[in-house]
């Protein structure tokens, strides 16, 4: 059984269908990259999975427990969210808390963990993202890349079952993107389960073991990373990869051999 399963997620804004019907299942230790053009519904999918947007329909199953993405009790949503982590495009660090407090807040305030213990975990998480020396800085005093790394430390600190990344590097310049991607690569090597909505094809190629292409609210192609990039099955995948100007290491082939 998969660790996390999103089934038949649907979401419209007014009359506009953003997610038509998407199902994804994720195994423990998977790094799933979700690619797709802007407006394809990938961010919305992630927000629905974190109960930040209300889906019109669909369910999420985490560790065998199924929750309705459209309706959920207040108790269940808090319980569910305490098992996931979320990293945002715009970092969203708590502006009134230092780097360390950002990481420990979820432990002490939400999970009522002992302060000392939370601090130990928090420092460990900051060390993992290489920001131990910035622990007492407020977010406004950190660079974008540093803020995002603190946000990642905040997401991993409670040891969630899965971490959702919503375009974690889209707000960063190339240099800062690199430092964030390196941290994420390290998490992947540690076996942390991640779903990453991204425009970083390079990252998807190098780090993800599975890749999903979403367009117009449906999954176009879902494959292991090698197949996706070297032998994509769908014409639309080939078109997408061409548009992103990604330089494949092998020749692009489809099942039918059409290029």
């Amino acid at each position: 059984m998969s660790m996390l399963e999103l089934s038949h997620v649907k979401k419209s804004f007014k009359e506009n269908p953003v997610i038509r019907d998407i199902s994804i299942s994720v195994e423990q230790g998977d790094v799933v990259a979700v690619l797709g053009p802007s407006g394809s519904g990938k961010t919305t999918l992630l927000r629905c999975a974190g109960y930040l947007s209300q889906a019109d329909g669909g369910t999420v199953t985490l560790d065998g427990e199924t929750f309705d993405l459209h309706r959920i009790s207040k108790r269940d949503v808090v319980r569910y969210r305490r098992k996931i982590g979320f990293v945002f495009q715009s970092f969203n660090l708590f502006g009134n808390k230092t780097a360390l407090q950002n990481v420990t807040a979820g432990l002490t305030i939400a999970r009522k963990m002992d302060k000392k213990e939370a601090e130990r975990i928090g420092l460990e998480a900051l060390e993992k993202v290489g920001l131990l020396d910035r622990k007492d800085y407020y977010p406004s005093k950190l660079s974008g890349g540093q803020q995002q790394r603190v946000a990642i430390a905040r997401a991993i600190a409670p040891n969630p079952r899965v971490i959702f990344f919503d375009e974690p590097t889209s707000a960063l310049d190339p240099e800062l993107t690199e430092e964030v991607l390196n941290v994420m690569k390290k998490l992947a090597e540690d076996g942390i389960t991640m779903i990453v909505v991204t425009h970083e094809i390079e990252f998807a190629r190098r780090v993800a073991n599975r890749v999903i292409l979403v367009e117009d609210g449906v999954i176009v192609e879902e494959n292991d990373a090698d197949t996706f990039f070297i032998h994509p099955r769908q014409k639309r995948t080939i078109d997408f990869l061409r548009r992103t100007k990604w330089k494949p290491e092998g020749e692009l082939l489809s099942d039918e051999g059409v290029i």
Partner: protein
Amino acid sequence: MTERIFHELVDAFPKLLLPAIKVTIPLTLLSFSIGLLIALTTALVQVAKIPVLRKAARFYVWIIRCTPMIVQLFVVYFGLPSIGIRLASFPAAVLVFSISVGAYCSETIRAAIESVSSGQMDAAYCSGFTFSQAMFHIIIPQACSTAFPPLSNSLIGLVKDTSLAYSVALVEILASAQRIAARTYDYFWLYLEAAVVYLIICSFLTVLQRRGEKALEARR
């Protein structure tokens, strides 16, 4: 200004300062504290979108903001006794001013809360916070620095509005000046002196506001 008037004003000054300390300042502080609690509750009820209470909150703000405070004072002090509720001047004034501060400041607080980026709430939720944990630990602390200047405005406004309590027989600064002037007929000078007492109190609050803003600034 003749020497006689000068001496009279010097004599009168402590007689205006005393009601300031004994009446105006306690009335202001008490009303403002109670008012802020009402304001916070009223704002939270609206932000949390609690069905019936939210409508009630809108209704309350509407009624209080759209009627003059002096009319509210009259209703409470002269009107309520006719249905058997008798309040002395001071509690009547505290009641009216608290309710008034509550209505105006609830809008300030609501706007300040709504000005905090929605990403902060998203992040709090994804850190496992409940709505009220997110509000009290993340959103409200950040809304404070936005709300602080307009709330200071309301406090300074209230100091001066307490002079309306003169109309419900409360002997505060203005009433004291009026009483002294009634004996000497130097209305012009005594009312000016009363104005100076208000000016002193409000200037002090203005300085406090500056310091408060700096302190809030340093915390981010």
